[in-house]
């Protein structure tokens, strides 16, 4: 046994009391701050649920067609979505999709500027990198509990937990993509008298887009992988079906909902990957096949 050097009890009590104090005094403030997130999630969810199923199927299949310029992907997407409908999982799938989209949109809005500032300053990178490591490795329950304490069970803590888990890869890949732009191209741009903003939007971001889009792909996948945990604190959707399946020992329910999550994952993974490939082709990493 490692000898007891200090008594950690007071420290633990201080942290617990501190959190309770925060919940009591600032809880409303936090809730107000997170309100826009909730509105975003609600808006997406309402939109997805009120839209007729065939329209959503048509739109996603159309996007798949646009992204891949072939017929294989739209067919895969079509069948994945029909599977969700046939298995009576449509509404739950829309709820889960809304959570994933809201988390991804928020992650994009937050991560890209953070990635940009990391790519520009070694100091910022040194500061942010350990935070990202922490966000990715800390078991999600550890921050789930305080978020539930602050916001109460429901969609907000679920969304926040999903964002915390899903955002880091996008930050990292944005930073990496911006920094790995060919220095010869950057120098040429500098020689033309551009200012840093012109270089960022005119050269760096367009050339980093394939990497950034790989980050977005990662973020959507990680957001989907959080849905079961998120449903424990009230996110609903497919994750909740899985949980119920486990709780009632209904293997079939868990299996179908689980396969539903896989179907959603396939749809969004393939679509974002195809867009990424298209972007790569556009900046000439790969010559267009046709």
């Amino acid at each position: 046994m490692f000898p007891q050097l200090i008594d950690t009890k007071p420290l633990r009590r201080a942290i617990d009391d501190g959190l309770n104090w925060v919940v009591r005094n600032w809880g409303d403030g936090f809730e107000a701050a997170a309100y826009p997130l909730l509105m975003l999630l609600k808006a997406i969810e309402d939109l997805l649920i009120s839209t007729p199923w065939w329209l959503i199927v048509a739109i996603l299949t159309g996007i798949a067609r646009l992204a891949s310029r072939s017929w294989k992907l739209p067919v895969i997407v079509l069948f994945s979505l029909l599977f969700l409908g046939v298995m009576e999982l449509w509404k739950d799938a829309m709820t889960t999709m809304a959570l994933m989209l809201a988390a991804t949109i928020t992650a994009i809005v937050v991560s890209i500027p953070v990635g940009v500032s990391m790519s520009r300053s070694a100091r910022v990178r040194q500061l942010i990198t350990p935070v990202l490591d922490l966000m990715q490795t800390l078991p999600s329950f550890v921050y789930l509990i305080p978020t539930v304490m602050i916001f109460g069970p429901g969609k907000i803590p679920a969304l926040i937990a999903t964002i915390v888990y899903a955002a880091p890869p996008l930050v990292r890949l944005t930073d990496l993509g911006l920094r790995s732009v060919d220095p010869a191209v950057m120098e040429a741009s500098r020689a033309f008298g551009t200012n840093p903003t012109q270089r960022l939007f005119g050269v760096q971001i367009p050339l980093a887009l394939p990497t950034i889009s790989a980050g977005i792909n990662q973020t959507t996948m990680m957001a989907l992988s959080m849905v079961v945990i998120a449903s424990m604190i009230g996110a609903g959707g497919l994750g909740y079906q899985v949980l119920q399946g486990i709780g009632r020992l209904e293997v079939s329910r868990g299996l179908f909902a689980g396969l539903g999550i896989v179907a959603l994952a396939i749809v969004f993974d393939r679509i974002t990957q195809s867009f990424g490939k298209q972007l790569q082709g556009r900046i000439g990493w790969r010559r267009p096949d046709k």
Partner: protein
Amino acid sequence: MGLSGSGKSTLIRHVNRLIEPTAGEIVVEGNSVLALSLDELRKYRRTKVAMVFQKFGLLPHRSVIDNVAYGPEVRGVGHEERLEKAAKWIATVGLSGYENSRTRQLSGGQQQRVGLARALAMDTDIILMDEAFSALDPLIRSGMQDQLIELQQTLNKTILFITHDFDEALKIGNRIAVLKDGAVQQVGKPEEIVLKPANAHIEEFVREVNKARAIHVRSIMERGDVELCEYSVPMNARCEDVLPLFAEHEWVGVLDDDGRQIGRVTAKQVIRALARHSPT
């Protein structure tokens, strides 16, 4: 001109301050470039100096025409006008028909033409070219050199051309500075360097070089009012241009720009000039 690592790229990047010098000064049109503020420096880069790079440095996400229009775009020239200008320069460098290609789809020689057109579209008086032709294979390279010389006859720009190839320097340079270990060894006209190398290092280059191409006949001719020759060459002819003529003629006249004869050369004079620094 200088060997690899002699500091050529370092030197030329000082002219538009892509590298900040630690000492000395850079004067362009009487103004100190080092005294410019960041904003003035950007304006100076947009309006006074353009640059062509060894690795091309083209923007891979833009089409050829948008690459060439990049300089005017940064300067705030309107969409129509800059595309018109870009199309003109693309035609000048012989790339008509490739306007909407992606740069990576072009060959090395074509890419460097885009680089050249992009610099020319800046409408600056000064163009910096850092080993612009080094990445090209010999035949295309020689073609680009000829094209540059031809263009320069109508453009009359100040071109700072960096090369590690002495022959290339002799072919396109009006004045050559030879660099070694970051220091200038000799500055002069091509024939001054070929005829009077300042030190052993430069002699080494000179020994390898095709002197018949480097030496102008006017620098070795017999000047003055001599009798009119049967056959004459213009003033900027080089020894290699007159050598074949000696099969038919004993004397070859040299004409100035107005067509008046200003001197004459014999085969003997040419041979003596070519032989002077050959290895013994």
